């Protein structure tokens, strides 16, 4: 709870700093605020505290995801030095809006009451609508924002309607209470549940409700895309899982078939479409759809290990994505393009960057000895123990497709010839973040025991 307060205060302070033109102070203040909120969350580890008549419950689940969200945001902020200045003169807005979005994300991972879920999702979404459209004079950005906003508003309607029906069926917004009264009015309850499922599926970008993702990801500034594909997605899945394990766990027969169809579609569309992309940013956008598919498997398998699987997968995915997007930003700045061909010959000019990108791609592809491998390993394990072997077989097939397109980048970097002597200068902030991500990815890939038993 203290985390949310600190993040919100930091965001307001940052707004005022922007008002008084204290450009230099924006980043340090934001980082300090985030560190403080991460630390307070960490101190509360092991306790289970509820606030405001059970509106929010901070248990280990919420704390673990909060820390992950905060750390990812810190990494993204560190990459933001000089980045936003290139796009706009009102830099404070960026920091403030991203911080508000993060506050929304933390509410989403800790909600106990459906109204808090709704508020969390809305804080996060509205911030993201703004971020998508922040390049006002850019047509792609405008299109992205409009698409995102219209469809997002639509899905919010589904969510609210679903919540209303579930409330009608059970007489409560509290997820424990809902689970207890689930069978009293099945028709109302099931319709409400399905509407909520659709809304959540939209928010995390699961097929067939994924259409907004590629356009929005491509239209927004890359660093914001990084935020969307890591923080927003993680928060979305944490909320999704919490809602479906606690409130709808007992009625899994209602949504199981729908979700398994969604998994298959998401894996297939995400991976196969990504394989045809020649633009790295779009490739990562589609691959993020496919990752949503893998995480959805853990929700479908719904067992004691699901929470752990999603946490591990999110950690691996977020860290690797930050590294991948970070390298991509550098390449784009230097070579003016984020097509895969822009990576040609990177290994010759910048061996360290190429190595980090390779580690990130291997982790996203799920190659052993990287964190991403254990992410997939846990998801597959959870699913097989819940007797979804056929689904894992499809997922394995799609993972092979994934390896195909992730390695396209590696091939471009190491095997194709690029311009000679086009060396990219890397600032210390970037060096720190990228090295940190690469090291964590390898460390968790070799010693996954560090995070396997958190939840």
């Amino acid at each position, binding site marked *: 709870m203290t985390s949310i307060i600190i993040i919100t205060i930091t965001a307001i302070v940052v707004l005022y700093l922007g008002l008084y033109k204290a450009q230099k102070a924006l980043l340090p203040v934001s980082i300090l605020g985030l560190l403080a909120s991460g630390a307070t969350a960490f101190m509360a580890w092991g306790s289970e505290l509820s606030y405001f008549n059970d509106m929010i419950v901070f248990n280990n689940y919420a704390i673990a995801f909060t820390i992950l969200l905060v750390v990812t945001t810190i990494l993204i902020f560190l990459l933001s030095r000089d980045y936003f200045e290139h796009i706009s003169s009102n830099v404070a807005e960026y920091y403030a809006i991203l911080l508000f979005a993060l506050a929304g994300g933390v509410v989403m991972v800790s909600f106990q009451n459906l109204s808090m879920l709704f508020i969390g999702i809305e804080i996060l979404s509205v911030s993201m609508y703004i971020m998508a459209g922040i390049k006002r004079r850019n047509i792609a950005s405008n299109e992205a924002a409009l698409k995102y906003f219209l469809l997002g508003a639509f899905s919010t309607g589904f969510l609210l309607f679903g919540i209303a029906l579930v409330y009608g069926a059970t007489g409560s917004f509290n997820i424990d209470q809902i689970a207890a009264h689930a069978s009293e009015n099945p028709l109302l309850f099931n319709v409400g549940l399905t509407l909520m499922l659709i809304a959540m599926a939209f928010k995390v970008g699961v097929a067939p409700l994924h259409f907004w993702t590629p356009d929005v990801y491509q239209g927004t500034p890359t660093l914001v895309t990084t935020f969307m594909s890591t923080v927003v997605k993680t928060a979305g899945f944490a909320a999704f899982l919490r809602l479906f394990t606690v409130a709808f766990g007992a009625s899994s027969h209602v949504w199981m078939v729908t979700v398994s169809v969604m998994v298959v579609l998401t894996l297939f569309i995400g991976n196969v479409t990504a394989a045809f992309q020649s633009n790295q940013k779009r490739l990562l956008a589609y691959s993020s759809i496919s990752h949503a598919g893998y995480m959805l498997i853990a929700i479908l398998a719904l067992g004691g290990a699901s929470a752990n699987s999603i946490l591990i997968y999110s950690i691996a995915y977020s860290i690797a994505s930050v590294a991948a997007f970070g390298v991509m930003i550098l390449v784009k700045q230097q070579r003016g393009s984020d097509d895969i061909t822009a990576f040609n010959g990177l290994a010759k000019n910048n061996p360290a960057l190429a190595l980090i990108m390779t580690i990130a791609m291997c982790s996203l592809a799920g*190659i*052993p*000895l990287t964190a991403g491998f254990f992410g997939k*390993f846990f998801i*597959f*394990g959870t699913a*097989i*123990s819940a007797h979804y*072997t056929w689904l*894992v*077989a499809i997922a*394995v*097939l799609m*993972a*092979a497709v994934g*390896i*195909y397109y992730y*390695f396209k980048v590696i*091939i471009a970097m*190491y*095997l*194709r010839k690029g311009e000679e002597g086009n060396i990219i200068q890397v600032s210390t902030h970037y060096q720190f973040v990228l090295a940190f991500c690469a090291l964590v990815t390898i460390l968790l890939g070799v*010693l*996954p*025991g560090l995070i*396997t*038993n958190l939840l």
Partner: protein
Amino acid sequence: MTQPGLLTVFLILLPLVASLTLSLVKGEQVKKLALVFSLAELAIGLFAWSKFDAADARAQFLYDTNWVASLGIHFAVGMDGISMLLVLLTVVLVPLIILSSFKNEFKKPNALYALILFMQAGLIGVFTSLDAFLFYVSWEAALIPIYFICAIWGGEDRIRITFKFFVYTIFGSLFMLLGIIYLYFMTPDHSFSLLSFYQVSLSPTAQSWLFWCFFLAFAIKMPIFPFHTWQPDTYTTAPTAGTMLLSGIMLKMGIYGVMRWLLPVLPMGVLEWGNTAMILSVIGIVYASIIAFTQKDTKRLIAYSSIAHVGLISAGVFALNVQGMQGAMIQMVSHGINVVGLFFVIEIIYQRTKTRETFNLGGIANEAPVLATCFMIIMLGAVALPLTNGFIGEFMLLNGVFNYNILLSAIAGLTIIFGAVYMLRMYQKVMLGEVNNVTAGFTDLFASEKAVLFIICALVIVIGVYPKPILSVSEVAVNNLLEVIKLRMQ
């Protein structure tokens, strides 16, 4: 030594450390340094052999420690006779492969040698793992370096060809991963340990599915017809050191996988599908031999002959009798030695004449008698002439297949005739006849080349005349393995 298990750990760690060291070293010293590391590894391997008790069927030099405790993943390694022999093969061949590349000029040699040694660590890991998870990780750890070796230092059109190889093999191994996770949940104690896998009893249907999960991975690696399509292109385009690693050692991973992780774990699946695997292997023998006839490119010809040889080895393994298994063991060693020798001879000729096409060459024997003699000896080993190493293996393998099915052994036996024809014909075209303007002035072997080829020729003859030391290493372990399989088939 207080803890003999550390020996196995050293065998895995030394190449890893060497690989890291080499990646940081710059300059010409890197080749020698790589050789020194691989010789140190050879010394440890030979030391382990001297301490190895061949009368004991169990895994020796055991080392077992928790890796991911919450999942029951162990870092468990050890060697029984089967592992020991393949570890020996690996530690003998890697220094030879490194030495054989001394005359090549590579860009970024430190990266190349670092990758070779990294791959060696992966290979030793595969051959010694007693934990399915560790096995899988080592399996992939051996693949990634060889992919980069072939893709960076390879020949024409290497990007497309090696990528096909990479996607193909990783596709197979992902299914193996699926099988491993499934078996893990079926073990009584939720563990990845080999012994727990031996205790899993599943319905025949489940075993059939799992059989294909594992068999796909192994069959692609070997490769067995019809999963071989990546192989000829990859072997041809890879740098010769890479081709040697692929054909000399890496394809043995597939056969080893069948022996260790497929037959005893899924005996019902083998009852159901072993015959199919057998027939595929035999088809591969004939198919690859016929294609080998028509090859003009010598490297490609040997690539196809390799498919034929490995088909026979796999047929011997699936015959599930002592002759077949023991034949497979010794033939894995012989084939590894011979094929490395053959690819090296091709490389020597290529370096001097810049061609590998048979019709461009001829008369080299007149210019380079030492090379011609060495080539002859190695080739006779490859075509299984009595008193060479190839003979023992092929004889035992055919005997094993004969005990399984007479018709199949008759077809498989064609491999000897076919092999003799296409190999001798190649030898004739390349080495004999008139000297032409391409081969004129062909210089005979340099010192480093002599060293490699003499060692290989010596091995061809010594193993051919006196195979007992090799056979006795794996004999007890193979008998034990067959007993386990028979027991679990009932």
